[in-house]
């Protein structure tokens, strides 16, 4: 049953930069429509894990990887880069808006994937902004440069932009690290509402954020996956003492 539910599965995933091993034998399953939180101190390989999933790591020429990542039952090595990155979208720590208008930012993805029909693009832009719950705020300013928006709006614009390429999975790499509490709350609300139709993986340095948003949680430490469990259980009765130490703030 669980096996069928897994949309992503890694088998003995090992990642290296030159000779430095940053991830060791990671075996994890990500279930459909869940929010999986990934917590752990800096340099524990969280971001590398996330970027391994949509193969953004391979842009770095020093990067090497062993093991298998399975997406929808298929080894990701057999899927072209542009397709896997379309199916598994990513939101970065700093809102990475492009220096063009709000509209063009969102239209960029669909255009890259060959949608030429102007009407369809317009429709996608509107849908995506609505799904990311920023339509009401931004609908009258679609022509303004996206760089003029506030940090929180930019980050939700980035979510909308990712939604416009119609992914199945959305990766978040510390999406709120540069945002104020109000904007953070809005991003978190958006994530919770998106959970109905998307699988989401959230890397965060903020253990409280993981406890608020995620359904299940994974704890990474020094390149190893210490444990992965229901968030509620993990935050009350973790099976590994190191997890308890990290969550309660004894180190990290």
């Amino acid at each position, binding site marked *: 049953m669980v096996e069928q539910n897994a949309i992503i599965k890694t088998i003995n995933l090992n990642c290296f930069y030159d000779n430095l091993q940053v991830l060791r034998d990671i075996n994890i399953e990500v279930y459909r429509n869940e929010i999986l939180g990934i917590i752990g101190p800096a340099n524990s390989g969280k971001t590398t894990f996330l970027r391994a999933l949509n193969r953004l790591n391979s842009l770095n020429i020093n990067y090497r990887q062993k093991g298998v990542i399975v997406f929808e039952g298929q080894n990701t090595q057999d899927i072209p880069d*542009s397709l*896997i990155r379309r199916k598994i*979208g990513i939101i*970065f720590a700093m809102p990475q*808006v492009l*220096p063009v208008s709000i509209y063009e930012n969102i239209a960029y*993805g669909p255009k*890259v994937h060959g949608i030429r029909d102007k009407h369809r693009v317009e429709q996608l832009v509107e849908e995506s902004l609505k799904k990311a719950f920023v339509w009401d705020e931004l609908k009258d300013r679609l022509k303004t440069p996206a760089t003029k928006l506030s940090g929180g709006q930019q980050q939700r614009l980035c979510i909308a932009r990712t939604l416009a*390429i119609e992914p199945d999975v959305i990766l978040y790499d510390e999406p709120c690290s540069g945002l104020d509490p109000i904007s953070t709350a809005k991003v978190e609300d958006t994530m919770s509402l998106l959970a109905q139709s998307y699988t989401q993986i959230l890397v965060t340095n903020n253990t409280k954020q993981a406890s608020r948003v995620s359904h299940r949680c994974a704890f990474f430490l020094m390149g190893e996956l210490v444990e992965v469990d229901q968030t509620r259980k993990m935050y009350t009765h973790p099976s590994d003492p190191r997890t308890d130490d990290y969550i309660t703030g004894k180190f990290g």
Partner: protein
Amino acid sequence: MRNKFGERVIETAIRFSGFAIIAFVILIFLFLLKDSLSLFRVYSFKRFILEQKWLPISEPPTFGIVPLITGSLLVTVGAIVICVPVGVATALYIAEIAPGYLKTILKSLIEVLASIPSVVLGFIGIIWLGPFVKNTFHLSTGMCGLTSVFLLAFMALPTIISISEDALVGVPRMYKEAAYGLGATHWQTLWRIVLPAASSGIMAAVMLGIGRVIGETMVVMMVTGNAPIMPKSILQPLRTLTATIAGEMGETVSGSDHYYALFAVGLILFIITFVLNFTAEVFLRKGRR
């Protein structure tokens, strides 16, 4: 006390250097203007700018700058048409595609390219490129606009490549990652994100390239044929503003109308390059923001 005095001396020296540069530019301009005005007292500015003949030693002389400006513009436009696409493509290759070791080799080769003296290029133009153009297009002489267009394009390439490359490397990594993250291919990222983001720097590179071409003297003097006539095509001999000054200055009587006419040509050239450099600066500034 002593420190304070020392500081003041250094500060004054630096300030003086800064103002000296401004003073030099203004002095050169005034110098050109003064001698040009000596011509315009006896020969109207309107005729100088509109007359289509440059006949400085006939009686009475005609100083029409139009054929010279046309010659300069023709070779400049020709050179730009060739070197901008090639230069930007090379810069893109070096900045985004070439593997590390090749990048280093290419960059130092381009520096070598920039250091070739223009007289050597002119020499190559006379003995090799000129005859080649002559035979290819069945012309009566290979010393024509097109030959200099090729050489000028070659000369402007290093400027365009290195400044464009700086602009491309300066594109924030996050733009690229955002594009890759949306599933864009390498080529789509370069074409739709990196190039537009670097466009103001590339424009500045093109402007400086044009400035380099329009001010070049030796090559055009050696290979354009130096005929101060209205060129009907790029395959005909022509003459540029720069070559006119360099070629005729030695043969005029100091203080004659002809002498002052060459200063007026210099003034026009100065204004053209000044406007080009200024435009380039505006673009570069826009890019930095």
